[in-house]
């Protein structure tokens, strides 16, 4: 088992990174009243861990007995019935799902699952909670319609069902939904916290961590605890015992994106644009989300760019990212950004160096 999962804190008490949040949550639950919750924060900060620990706190160890289901809902949408299929992860006390995966039909899923839960209310509430918990992941990727349909069902069925929403950015969750929840921000752990965790794991695994090595990993991890732990293990697989200046291998896709960036910087021509398109396709078909590609690409480009262009390029990146979200075929927008960058950079080069 990977260390990330092996050393994941199972209870709220064992949480290292967000102790204060964990304690507050514990108090909240033990007072028998749990409002709807909205966890938000960057990836790798521990939202999911906290949620699972919280559920365990609420319902005891039976939450661990989960089953994975590939559920299909038949939704009656006016004239036709739509089959919506989604993977759910459920125990007897909670259901976890990622409605954003249902694409455009996400709103039906949200409504249906909540109604279904409300129907199957546990009869025996003696000593137990009288509600089930629905954990919805990636709420920020829900369509606006789904979020609107969520807010009504949230109130209507609040007696039998509590929602725990989880997302990266609360700004993409509608105000209405946010105001119905207790918002809990989980910030990215500070680097010294990450170092602490890494050293903890190192001690448990009996590893010899050279001084400063954990700090380097923490720095490289971009303040994502998950990535830090994964990196540590990757290093461990790659080479052990650790050395001081051991290279920390990048993710495969990150490596590829930086290759693209250097391609773009080296030459700005239609031919190169064509090659870059091929590489972008490669990334996309390897399931890298286009937003992440664009973000990473910008980061790589900015690192190599003259400072006077940085502002403009960032502006265009944001511009095309926005449009990418509006659109459907991500490659068009990525390509448009690359073409734009090439155009800007080329004219800059010619203006400066002739």
């Amino acid at each position, binding site marked *: 088992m990977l260390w990330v999962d092996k050393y994941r804190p199972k209870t709220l008490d064992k949480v290292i990174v967000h102790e204060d949040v964990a304690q507050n949550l514990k108090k909240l639950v033990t007072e028998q009243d749990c409002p709807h919750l909205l966890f938000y924060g960057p990836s790798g900060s521990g939202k999911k861990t906290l949620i699972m620990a919280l559920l365990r706190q609420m319902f005891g160890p039976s939450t661990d007995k989960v089953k*994975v289901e590939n559920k299909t809902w038949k939704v009656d949408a006016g004239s036709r019935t739509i089959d919506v299929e989604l993977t759910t992860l459920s125990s007897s006390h909670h259901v976890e799902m990622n409605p954003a995966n249902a694409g455009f039909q996400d709103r039906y899923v949200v409504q249906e699952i909540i109604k279904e839960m409300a129907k199957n209310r546990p009869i025996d509430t003696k000593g137990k909670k009288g509600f089930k918990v629905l954990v919805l992941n990636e709420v920020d990727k829900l369509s606006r319609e789904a979020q609107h349909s969520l807010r009504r069902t949230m109130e209507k069925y609040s007696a039998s069902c509590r929602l725990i929403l989880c997302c990266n950015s609360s700004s993409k969750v509608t105000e209405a939904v946010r105001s119905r929840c207790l918002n809990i921000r989980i910030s990215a752990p500070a680097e010294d916290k990450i170092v602490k965790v890494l050293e903890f794991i190192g001690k448990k695994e009996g590893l010899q961590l050279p001084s400063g090595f954990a700090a380097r990993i923490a720095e490289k991890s971009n303040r994502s605890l998950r990535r830090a732990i994964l990196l540590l293990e990757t290093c461990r697989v790659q080479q052990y015992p650790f050395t001081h200046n051991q290279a920390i291998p990048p993710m495969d896709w990150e490596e590829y994106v930086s290759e693209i960036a250097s391609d773009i910087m080296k030459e700005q021509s239609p*031919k190169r644009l064509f090659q870059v398109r091929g590489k972008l396709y490669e990334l996309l078909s390897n399931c890298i989300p286009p937003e992440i590609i664009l973000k990473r690409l910008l980061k790589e480009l900015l690192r190599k760019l003259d400072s006077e262009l940085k502002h403009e390029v960032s502006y265009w990146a944001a511009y095309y990212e926005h*449009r990418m979200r509006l659109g459907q075929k991500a490659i068009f927008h990525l390509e448009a950004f690359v073409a734009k960058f090439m155009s800007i950079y080329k004219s800059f080069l010619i203006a400066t160096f002739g």
Partner: protein
Amino acid sequence: MSDIRKWFMKQHDKGSGNGIPAKPKAPEKPAPVSSQPDQSGHGAQEGAGRRKTSKYFSSDKQKPKDETCVGELSLKRKAQNISTEETNDVKPPPGKKVHNMDDDDDFVLSTSTNALDATPSKKLKSGSGRGIAKKSMDVDESGDDDVKETKSLSKAAGRGRGGRSGSGTPARSSIAVDESDEDGADEKAGKSLKSGTGRGRGGGAASAAPAGGRGRGGGGRGGFMNFGERKDPPHKGEKETPEGAPDCLAGLTFVISGTLDSLEREEAEDLIKRHGGRVTGSVSKKTNYLLCDEDIEGRKSAKAKELGTPFLTEDGLLDMIRKSNKSKTTKPEESPKPVDKVLASPSKKATPKSEKKNEVGISAKRMETKGSTPGGSSIKQKKLVMQQSLPWTEKYRPKVPNDIIGNQSVVKQLHDWLVRWDEQFLKSGKGSNGKKQNDSGAKKAVLLSGTPGIGKTTSAKLVSQMLGFNTIEVNASDSRGKADSKIERGIGGSTANSMKELVSNQALNNNMERSQHQKTVLIMDEVDGMSAGDRGGVADLIASIKISKIPIICICNDRYSQKLKSLVNYCLLLNFRKPTKQQMAKRLLHVANAEGLQVNEIALEELAERVNGDMRMALNQLQYMSLSMSVIKYDDIRQRLQSSTKDEDISPFTAVDKLFGFNGGKLRMDDRIDLSMSDPDLVPLIIQENYINYRPSSAGKDEHGLKRMSLLARAAESIADGDIINVQIRRYRQWQLSQTGSLSSAIIPAALLHGQRETLEQGERNFNRFGGWLGKNSTMGKNYRLLEDLHVHVLASSESYMGRTTLRLDYLTLLLKQLTDPLRVLSKEEAVEKVVEFMDSYSISQDDFDTIVEISKFQGHPNPLDGIQPAVKAALTKAYNKGSSSRVIRTADLITLPGIKKAPKKRVAAMLEPEETLVEENVDAVGENEEENSSETEESDETVDPKKRLQAELESLNSKGIKVEMDLKGPGSSSAKKASAGRGRGRGRGKASSEASAEKKGGRGSGAAASKRKR
């Protein structure tokens, strides 16, 4: 003056016959340049062009006037700096109209300027665009050289140089002027030349010496490879198209052969037709001229030589047209009559038949003149008033069978069939009440088929009427529903169906020996539209035919329609063909004359061609046009019916080619929209795939490719716009945006980047690729499904709760390392053991392993599996499969509800077939599966060795006589393999479901047994 024209025509005939050029022109050549040395270059040029034609016909005082006018015009042009790309297409309407109505000196000016427009504009181009004028010069020169060559080569072919020299003159002078203007612009000239030759001609001609262009083209044409495809004319669009008298070519028949110098085949045809000439496909005795610019020794030229048909070059043709104009305009007192004479003269040689045709033309002319006289028109007017309310299609519906155009033999057949019907089917039927089927060869019904508007219904009615039948027309399109439904019930005898009644009534009549009663015929119109509404219509018609005592005529459009397959066997099949355009034109002319409409036959033939043999449509069009005009010319018909010919299908590739083509910038907006809309899904994709490959002609001089890059960026943004709009259209059904969408996804990128295509990769063919997005997107979809499978499996291990994206972005690198690194580093057994253990801990299956490897592959990066011995890999597979039985329960966590998925349900049902009760139990289970599933899982979790339990239960089931599918035992191996042939998703689900059903069955089996016992 007409004498001169006649003389010229003869001269030309002679000239083209024996290869002597029209001499009088030769001395004239240097004259304009020398006589007006003070004039600017283009002025001289114009002078040449102008004088060449005007010398013989115009008075002296007219000339300077003309020239000043031309000078002014060209100056104006220059000032405006109009891009005159469409010179050849531009038809100045006022000039023509006026010219037709009135022959005045003033209009010589207008027409001549029109005719000369091209010259100054060409010059203009050289002013602004440079290079291009040079190009034209070069090419012209080459053309001339070429002609000389070919002339010397093929004198025997009797190829005249008369026409050629005519247009050669201005070209020459332009050479002189241009050369003095700009020297040493070789580079540009070369460039423009390239562009002039265009894409169509392939690479070779572009780089070749200009003079070689034609010759090579000719050679290529003779070759086998290019069979069936015609090259672009070498000097396409470089000559102005003259405006001549509208019927200066009337009565002449042309055959076009080979590639012409500057006109496309269609253009030439159009030109001839517009001036009243006729174009036919093959050379016959009637042919007056064979229009060709080079002797390619084809069948046409051989035939022409055999028949002594004179050859005519394109320039000769243009001259003919130009001359006619001059002669007419300078001789205002001449009325159409001499034109007729002129017409008659060449056709004298032709057979009397063609003469007759000319006569028709003349008589048409007479009609026109007559029409203007008050007496004739008043009578017609009266008639018009009387019958104005009727549409022409009704008004001129044939009254006797002989009036029907074409298909006379079919009509005859129909007639004969109808005549013989009675004796064939009823004579013997007298005694046996029609029971006797006389179907030896003869059919009781007839099926007329053919395209709409060619007179099927009309002939059916006419023939019946002529034979004294009483026609009853059942028009399927309006009475179908009623008739049909009642036919069906009519068989049962409940309702009096009109048709059935009809059929039996006749029988009664015959029985009563009252043959004096009118005979009846049933016309079933549009039978192919009949069975659309309800079934059995055709079948019942057949039944009716079988028992019918009256003849039935069925009419349909498509005989091969699936619906009529059964009917065809009971009918005599008569197929109506489209009438020829000559036949139609004759009839249309008749109608037009009767209506007092002035139309010439050529125009009507064009109309007939455009409507595609549909007489009804032709008449309707004619009537419609008669509302707004009393004189209809060839051009009117062309314009009016232009849209109807455009309905051709073009492939998205052709559309993209056209949009991006070198002339892409000259397309009209609605043409572009049409092109991009030809396939609104594929065209944008192909454009997106290929726009990088085009070198935009609008970039002009582009040192560092900077302009191109910025154009690319703009195009890319526009394409991205198109994507956004597409989302609005598809997702939010904003279909009103579809034009905007095609504008931004196809038209704008094409407008920005149209130009020459170049290859970006070595070995790539220089053709547009198919849009790559579709393929890549489906790969992406597949990979996402595979990833989802992996994700579900990892979730099922209940070790981690990461999302799919997280799994891909963060975990995958390490997972891959954990899975592959040990295989590389450690010894075989150790490695395999470690990897299998790891796979088990995350319930990663063998397929998931492949998925991880597949998704981590990047082009240009080493394969993650490199460096792993095949033996180790095999050992891994083996070890995994061996241990697969132990992980049944883990993957069985993936429970699919049997009630929802169809496949597993079937399987469960099949498995439980032998015992009825169990099937019922299973159905119950489907209903209650919700709660039971959870309880079962809890149960199974609690059991210490679930696998053993399962096994035991399976055995118990076996003992009960239930056949259990063996693949349940090894879900990792056989079932997975079976499923892996299918889609990724299906695989995961299929496996999950089979395992689920295994688990389920186990649980249910015991549960059912227990419940039975309880009961």
